[in-house]
């Protein structure tokens, strides 16, 4: 999962397996939780969001789970592909226009 520090947590996954990236958030009052993907040499790209009154939301090959009891957010990627290799950031929106990003998790897909 994501953490504060100098070293980026890395998750290595075999191609075709499912990936689970975890994130702990801090603000119980956040309205939305968001996942971004950043490929090498590019800016972050929005993947999926979940509103605070939901527990689960599915997109194309991705599922986000929200557990407000333990302030935990996860991103599940089904059938991980080489193109999924990137750094993934969770983020939370507490105030209008104010988005706080986590420190990121690097996903490495092993062919």
């Amino acid at each position, binding site marked *: 999962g994501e953490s504060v*520090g100098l070293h980026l947590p890395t998750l290595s996954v075999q191609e075709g397996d499912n990936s689970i990236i975890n994130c702990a958030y801090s603000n119980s009052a956040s309205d939305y939780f968001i996942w971004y993907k950043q490929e090498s040499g590019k*800016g*972050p790209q929005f993947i999926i969001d979940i509103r605070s009154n939901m527990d689960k939301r599915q997109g194309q090959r991705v599922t986000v789970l929200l557990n407000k009891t333990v302030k935990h957010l996860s991103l599940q990627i089904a059938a991980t592909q080489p193109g999924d290799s990137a750094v993934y950031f969770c983020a939370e*929106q507490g105030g209008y*226009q*104010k988005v706080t990003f986590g420190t990121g998790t690097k996903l490495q897909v092993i062919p």
Partner: protein
Amino acid sequence: DVKVTQSSRYLVKRTGEKVFLECVQDMDHENMFWYRQDPGLGLRLIYFSYDVKMKEKGDIPEGYSVSREKKERFSLILESASTNQTSMYLCASSPPGTGGYEQFFGPGTRLTVL
């Protein structure tokens, strides 16, 4: 597709220089943001703007200023660059109605201050 462009991919400046980083978006978005990204620290918000000539401080505004004279353009200014401002700078924009959380990012400017 939304396109956010940043004026330079790589920039090298000397301590004390005034530095301008330019960002342009082509989707008529009201909201624009400047972040810096450092290893292990994620993205930290420097300033954002929700309208022309409007600006709000983010989490780390010290040593920076911004300018938004036109809707499509948001500039970040380092008044007197210092070595601790060596970083990757990311610009983003977002449309109204999303609360600002669905942001579209530019490719980033890697600034080195010597």
